[in-house]
């Protein structure tokens, strides 16, 4: 068993490779009491994980890998140390999804929940989310839609802001088409074989 340390402050953590029995230890804090999203990108082939006993799950438990992103939504937690265990790895494909954010400048249009379109531009992007500057502040803790202008067709996703300061927003993808995630990976120059 290996243990990887990471800091969970609503940002992505990198798990370059995992094996059965691995544990990821981190420190987390909730951004919104009922809308916390912790994204951890994982290699394809890992389809589940177990959160530690010291995490109290709130109204919803999405503690599973979804499109290569671990989502813990609705955790009722305060700052502290938490453990994410990975009890099983379903396969061992030669796949490694790069988790780090890459400097990339895409025009972004965000559809605020009230129907207002807000323009922005990314400055760091990964297949799990992006950091961008928007012309206006966007709602925190409320999922909203974005469209990233990549190539001929936009990549559409539903995102949640995990941190925001002034007009800089750090968002993680909640819903995105598999094809679009692969297209995004290609646009970022990431290797995405199989998966």
């Amino acid at each position, binding site marked *: 068993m290996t243990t990887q340390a990471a800091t969970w402050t609503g940002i992505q953590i990198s798990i370059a490779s995992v094996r059965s029995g691995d544990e990821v230890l981190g420190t987390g804090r909730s951004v919104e009491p009922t809308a916390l999203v912790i994204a951890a990108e994982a290699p394809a082939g890992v389809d589940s994980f177990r959160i530690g006993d010291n995490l109290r799950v709130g109204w919803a438990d999405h503690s599973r890998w*979804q499109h290569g992103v671990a989502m813990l939504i*609705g955790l009722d937690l305060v700052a502290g140390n938490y453990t994410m265990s990975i009890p099983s790895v379903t396969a061992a494909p030669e796949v490694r999804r790069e988790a780090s954010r890459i400097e990339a400048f895409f025009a972004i249009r965000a559809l605020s929940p009230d129907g207002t379109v807000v323009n922005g531009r990314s400055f760091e992007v990964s297949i799990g989310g992006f950091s961008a500057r928007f012309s206006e502040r966007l709602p925190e803790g409320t999922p909203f*839609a974005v*469209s990233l202008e990549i190539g001929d067709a936009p990549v559409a996703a539903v995102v949640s802001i995990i941190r925001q300061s002034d007009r800089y927003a750090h968002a993680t993808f909640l*819903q995105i088409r598999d094809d679009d995630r692969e297209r995004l990976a290609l646009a970022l120059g990431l290797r995405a074989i199989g998966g």
Partner: protein
Amino acid sequence: MELEQIPTRIALAQPSGWEMHDAKLTGLDDQGATAEVHFDLPGQCADRAVLLQVELHGESTLALCEHRPPERSEPGLLYLQFVSPDAVHTGSFGELIDVHRA
């Protein structure tokens, strides 16, 4: 509760951004939904990202969908498949699915 009574909006991710349209939710299950929209759909919207927004109890919930019309589709209907079915099982969509299933 009739689905048609649920305030529903459809947004299409066109290259210029999102365009919102009022719609009626006519069908819903674990995998997706059908929605009636009051405009002529452009041909290029097939197999494109569509955002479905429903309001229930004053709260708005989003689901990102793919438009996947069957071979014989009815005009004015969007056939939407959730891209993350698990993500819509909580909140308004989960409640709507339960109500519609009952």
